[in-house]
């Protein structure tokens, strides 16, 4: 197992997540893909900390996790508000800022 294998894995997961963000219609589906992308960044950071040493990259991974969780909380609150206003969660039909 070398560093480049972990980097390839992280790149593959990131690109799969990007495909999901671009194609999903449902707002929660998009949030799930964003989670997968943030996760792939953490794979890279932890692999770097293993092969270069030092604590900074693991601290960055913890920051990424925390910010992702905050983003999920706000994002799901927005999705629930969206559903309450329009009775669905399809992003293609969300064309107005106000209801």
């Amino acid at each position, binding site marked *: *197992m*070398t*560093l*480049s*294998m*972990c980097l*390839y*894995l992280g*790149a*593959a*997961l*990131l*690109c*799969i*997540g*990007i*495909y*999901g963000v*671009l*194609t*999903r*219609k*449902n707002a*929660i*589906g998009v*949030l*799930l*893909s964003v*989670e*997968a992308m943030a*996760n792939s960044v*953490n794979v890279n950071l*932890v692999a770097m*900390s*293993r*092969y*270069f*040493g*030092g*604590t*900074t990259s*693991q*601290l960055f*991974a*913890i*920051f990424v*996790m*925390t*910010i992702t*969780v905050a983003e*999920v*909380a*706000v994002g799901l*609150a*927005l*999705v629930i*508000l969206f*559903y*309450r206003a329009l009775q669905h969660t399809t992003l*293609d039909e969300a064309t107005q800022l106000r209801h």
Partner: protein
Amino acid sequence: MLELVGFGVIASVAIVAALAVVLWRNLVHSVLWLAVLLLATAALFILLGASFLGGIQIMLYAGGVVTLMLFAIMLTRRRGGVGVENETAPQRRFPALLASGTLFAAMAWAIHRTEGLPTEPQVPIQTSDLGFAFLSDHVLAFEVLSVLLLAATIGAIVIARRRDFGDAGPARPLRGAGSRIVRGRAR
């Protein structure tokens, strides 16, 4: 050698789970595949010597975020089946495939061309080192992060609180100064 086999198993599970998250038609199953992906990543973290991060990953993501997502799906589900509510947009499939494929090719080329990537792992970092770094060199970032979490929590509550959308049901009055306004709107 054993490490390599473990990495291969974890990587294939993670990629299959990520593809299932992105492509599966049933949204609830998609969330469960996301849990598989996050657990595979936690196993990879432990394999890479970052067992503290692996533990956080299991507790925070596989425990918390997945549950939160399932709650949100149950709250926003239309009546009558969850089967087809998560389909991908057919007209966007090819451009998205092109974009993500191009990006992966670029990143793989960059990783391939980079020389001098280390192949021998360093000594794993102890959890106590992480805690020490958090409270010495990076203490400002740590405090800002906690303020961010507080702001995000309050913001999520404020956004999702029932207010004045149509037939949203009776508003729950809050205790304190704001309660009279909320009650007045509900009537």
